[in-house]
């Protein structure tokens, strides 16, 4: 189109921006070189940036970028260590510093310099916890595990434990702290040091009630009881409330939590119980504005070890529900508003209100896929499986390619112990998408839950044949083969799982399984 023609269209001209020049990506030339495969030229761009603008906004990132290319593209660990050191000495407060220390550690690990690598990982952890918005719990878990791995390679079990203990000296996020306590407890337990193992497991029970490890630690009662004083009735009541809530038995869950509050339990456990009571009472009453106010007031008083991400999310959800309820009141014929509110109710566990609202949403907009699925899930959790199946099957008749619906229905049914119905959907998923590794993984999980181990093994083998990087399938394969007595194969599957995802939360179990199977591996 010529400028003249274009002008015909440009009838109104309104400049709303300032005249400041655009802040172009300072590394766009490096990106061009990388896209062309010329990594050395890209490194030069990054290096030049640091030299020309050592105090520039992106200087730390530039030094990191150069190191990253030296490490991953040129595979030159020595040069990479020099670049990462430049970040660590010149820009220690930068958000890139923890990752630079981690990458430096990886380079040293690559040349089997285990001692310095372990120390660099430790430095990465220290830098991470010193930052207000540092890396998350997963990152911290991976790095502390890697540090411990290095000291394990050195044969220095004491430093393995010391690494974990040092990590615990920092103010770790609650989930990372609980995982680390569990791991170090496990180290002591393996070494036969029951008192120290009990000390760490007990810490989880007193301080970290909202973490996954709470249930695991509660299972170690026999080991903990001779060495640590724990109110086991309180722990058991809290664990039972967790199970009850998963089954949507909120009244009973509230009863158990009230019992915890009347017992001589830790402050963290009592506060967690109180938090649950407020949440469940709100869901039952449906008064989310009031619930939001009560939760906000309670959250201010929560000990840091209880302030897990789910607590903040719960508070945000309450606010959202209250906002959406007002929106639906303003627009009673809005399909999207009903759909969103219904989904929020289901996420909150307010199932009856969710079913009612989603049914209304589908009356207004019958084709809404999300509403259909959310309604199915709510019905399944309410035990109304036949109705859920009818909706899902009608959808699948219209959209036979919707394999995600088959998969999600399968998992929802599996979670509620409707195993045969779940297998039916997983089987349909495999038939619809035989080349999808995830289909076999899902069907394998269903078969495993049904106790049909040999068939499950076959499905997981098909999954890894289709996708050799599918780490979950290797873990499950290892577990099945271990149960079937196929020790060598189980060990190999676990080893592959660890190789692919060394930072996975199930890594300690995989390592323990390998040791139990007679393998000598720390990876």
């Amino acid at each position, binding site marked *: 189109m010529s400028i003249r023609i274009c002008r015909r269209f440009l*009838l109104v001209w*309104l400049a*709303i921006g300032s005249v400041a020049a655009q802040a172009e990506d300072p590394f*766009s030339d490096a990106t061009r070189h990388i*896209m062309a495969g010329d990594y050395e*030229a890209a490194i030069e761009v990054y290096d030049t940036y640091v030299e020309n603008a050592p105090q520039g906004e992106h200087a730390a990132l530039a030094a990191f970028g150069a190191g990253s290319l030296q490490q991953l593209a040129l595979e030159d660990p020595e040069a990479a260590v020099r670049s990462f050191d430049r970040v660590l000495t010149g820009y220690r407060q930068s958000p890139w510093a923890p990752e630079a220390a981690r990458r430096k550690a990886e380079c040293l690990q690559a040349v089997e310099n285990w001692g310095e690598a372990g120390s660099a990982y430790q430095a990465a952890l220290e830098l991470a916890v010193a930052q207000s918005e540092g890396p998350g719990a997963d990152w911290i878990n991976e790095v502390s595990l890697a540090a411990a791995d290095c000291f394990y390679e050195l044969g220095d079990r004491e430093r393995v434990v010391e690494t974990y203990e040092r990590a615990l000296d920092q103010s770790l996020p609650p989930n990372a702290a609980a995982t680390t306590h569990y791991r170090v407890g496990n180290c002591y337990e393996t070494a036969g040091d029951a008192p120290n193992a009990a000390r760490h497991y007990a810490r989880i029970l007193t301080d970290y009630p909202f973490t996954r490890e709470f249930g695991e630690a509660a299972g170690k009662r026999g080991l903990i009881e001779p060495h640590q004083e724990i109110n086991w009735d309180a722990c058991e009541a809290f664990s039972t409330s967790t199970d009850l809530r998963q089954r949507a038995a909120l009244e009973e869950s509230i009863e158990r939590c009230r019992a915890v509050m009347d017992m001589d339990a830790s402050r963290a456990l009592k506060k967690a119980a109180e938090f649950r009571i407020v949440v469940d009472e709100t869901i039952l009453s449906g008064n989310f504005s009031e619930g939001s106010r009560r939760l906000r007031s309670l959250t201010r008083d929560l000990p840091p070890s209880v302030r897990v991400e789910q607590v903040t999310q719960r508070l945000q959800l309450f606010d959202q529900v209250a906002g959406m309820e007002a929106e639906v009141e303003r627009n009673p014929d809005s*399909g*999207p508003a009903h759909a*969103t509110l219904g989904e929020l109710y289901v996420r909150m566990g307010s199932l009856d209100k969710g079913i009612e609202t989603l049914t209304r949403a589908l009356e207004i907009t019958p084709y809404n896929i999300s509403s259909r699925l959310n309604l199915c899930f709510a019905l399944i959790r309410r035990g109304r499986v036949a109705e859920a199946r009818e909706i899902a099957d009608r959808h699948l008749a219209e959209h036979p390619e919707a394999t995600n619906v088959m998969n999600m229905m399968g998992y929802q049914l599996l979670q509620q112990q409707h195993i045969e119905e779940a297998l039916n959907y997983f089987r349909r998923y495999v038939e619809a998408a035989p080349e999808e590794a995830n289909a076999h993984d899902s069907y394998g999980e269903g078969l495993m839950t049904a106790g049909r181990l040999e068939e499950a093994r076959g499905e997981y083998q098909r999954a890894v044949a289709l996708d050799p990087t599918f780490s979950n399938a290797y873990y499950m394969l290892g577990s099945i083969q271990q149960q079937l007595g196929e020790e060598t194969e189980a060990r190999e599957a676990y080893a592959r799982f660890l190789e692919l995802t060394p930072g996975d939360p199930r890594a300690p179990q995989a390592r323990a399984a390998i040791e139990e199977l007679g393998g000598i591996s720390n990876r």
Partner: protein
Amino acid sequence: MLQDGFSRRRFLKCSALLGAQTTLGFGLGRASGLPMDLAVVTGDSPERNCTAAVEALGGFSRFVREGDRVTIKPNPIGTSLPEQAIHTHPDMVGAVVKGCRDAGAESVTVLSYDNRRNMVVNGTAAAVEGAGGVLKALGEREEFREVVIPRSRILRTEPIAIDVLEADVFINMPIAKHHAGAEVTLTMKNLMGINWDRIRFHRSGLHQCIAELASAVRHDLVIMDANHVLLSNGPSGPGEVSAARQVIAGVDPVAVDAFALRYFQRTPESIDHIRIAHQLGVGEIDLGKLRIREYTA
């Protein structure tokens, strides 16, 4: 000093000649010298909105030179009508193919990870091929090359479509939509599709991965379809649609995305991948620092 409108291939040729000068890394991009950072055109015709937005930036000849190989990445999924705002309007894609060909492009390839059948149904195939472009549905691992991503914490490396890596000009043509996972799918989210392993992104931290991928791809031009904007139940819909009747063009993916959040009544900082991409130096998030011009077509 290199000139505006330099293609990637020509850039690389000259880089070799200029030696150390090219490593200075300043002022070599197409953006320098553009009359504005974002051109926003409102009107009833998606095609006219699109061509007018590019003209406002200087026209296709500013971005495409004789003999260039151009790669375009629209958001082509699904078989719905353009008014449902699921895929980039075919008339826009056709107009851009034509604009590039008229500017002398040797070839114009339009990429998709969705199958060809859907693109025939939704009208993209006819629009592309009618304008002299080639439609390519990516599906084989061999069509991607592993690239190191230096500005990354998670990805480290990622297989990226060779058609993008070796193009002289890369044009991203997203449609503005709600997205259940990423909150919105705009320019940077639309890059998912030029990479091989999309599932990994969902497993590893979607927002961080989107921003890191955006740091590894040089955009020569972004043209966003906001003629109809999907506000809910994205990315596949159907959902609530706003007839915004606009097209946004620019070269900075962060700036385009930051601007497009007006349709969703969100601030740029509230969407993680946009905020992270800005921190990675990919582009500008502060609309107050940009030269934005709005037109009516």
